[in-house]
């Protein structure tokens, strides 16, 4: 089987079956997946930060702007909005002892992504978020399933 395409920080990939796409080593970053099971079109945005500053060009770097950008791209590729469902993976707190000085970016990323999904009227179909462990997530456009592995535990599927 073909290797999945890797999607790095602040990047976005939109494609269709039978492709697979993968976000490797998600810590506080969140992978937002959108999928239309009828056309098997979907995509992922690998977001780093919760909220974009005014006038940013890097829409896929921020949760609040990436979701809208990802939505318009999957629609261009042939997905139908009413069939779309979303999944979220990541948003961990990798260094919890630093929480005195810095905010929990992982949690904020999840919150902003959910808010954006709600505002755009997209149903959240699954999530594997928060905690203190990193994750790798591979999205199979054939089935719409996202399989998640961590550094030391078995994989699970959402």
């Amino acid at each position: 089987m073909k290797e999945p395409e890797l999607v790095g920080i602040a990047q976005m990939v939109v494609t269709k079956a039978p492709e697979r796409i993968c976000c490797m080593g998600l810590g506080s970053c969140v992978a937002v997946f959108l999928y239309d099971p009828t056309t098997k079109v979907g995509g992922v945005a690998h977001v780093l930060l919760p909220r974009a500053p005014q006038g940013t060009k890097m829409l896929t770097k921020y949760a609040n702007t990436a979701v809208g950008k990802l939505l318009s791209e999957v629609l261009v590729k042939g997905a139908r909005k009413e069939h779309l469902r979303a999944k979220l993976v990541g948003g961990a707190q990798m260094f919890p002892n630093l929480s005195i000085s810095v905010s929990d970016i992982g949690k904020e990323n999840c919150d902003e992504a959910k808010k954006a999904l709600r505002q755009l009227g997209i149903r959240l179909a699954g999530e594997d978020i928060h905690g203190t462990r990193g994750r790798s997530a591979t999205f199979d456009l054939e089935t719409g399933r996202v399989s998640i592995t961590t550094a030391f535990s078995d994989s699970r599927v959402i």
Partner: protein
Amino acid sequence: MRPKDESKVLDIVGEFANVGAGNAATALGALLDIEIVNEVTSCNLLPLSKVAGWLGGAEQIVAGVYTQLCGDLRGGVLVILSGDSATTLLHHLTKEKPNLSKLTEIQVSALREIGNICLCWYLVAVSKMIDSDLIPAPPDATVDLLGAVLDLPLAHVGVKVDTVIAVHTVFKSFQKEFDGYFLLLPEEQMLDVILEKMGDGR
């Protein structure tokens, strides 16, 4: 103030980091009672998406200790050890073989303290060079996928920029299987000070 030539910028920052890494390696070697040597410092200007790949891939399991500089000059500094090296280190210090998937509180604390000592010696050396105070927050440590370890440091630097200057110095020991690297991610203002104090203007 800033030289236009990108490779020149990278040379200057590399030289800067080299001195810090030398000091940190000496401290680490003293703690472990082995001789630790640094290899050449490499420095690169990378988009956020490419940093983990440049360091060998997001999927490797590593031990990472991260501290954030929280004074006037900001940035992130990390010590990254390979999984095997973290095991060697913790074994040496705590006299019991650690299970990296489930570190005890005392083992995480040991890792954090090792990082603290190395990173502070790193910062002592570089802050002398630029004649500025660098104030680290107490560090934290974890063992996980490299990509996940880098997320928070990159998020901190990435608030202001889409491409980062990353400087890494590999260290290793010839006596034991032990290797890792120091990683510096300076923010814009820190970079300006480094270039001003160490660049052509000196």
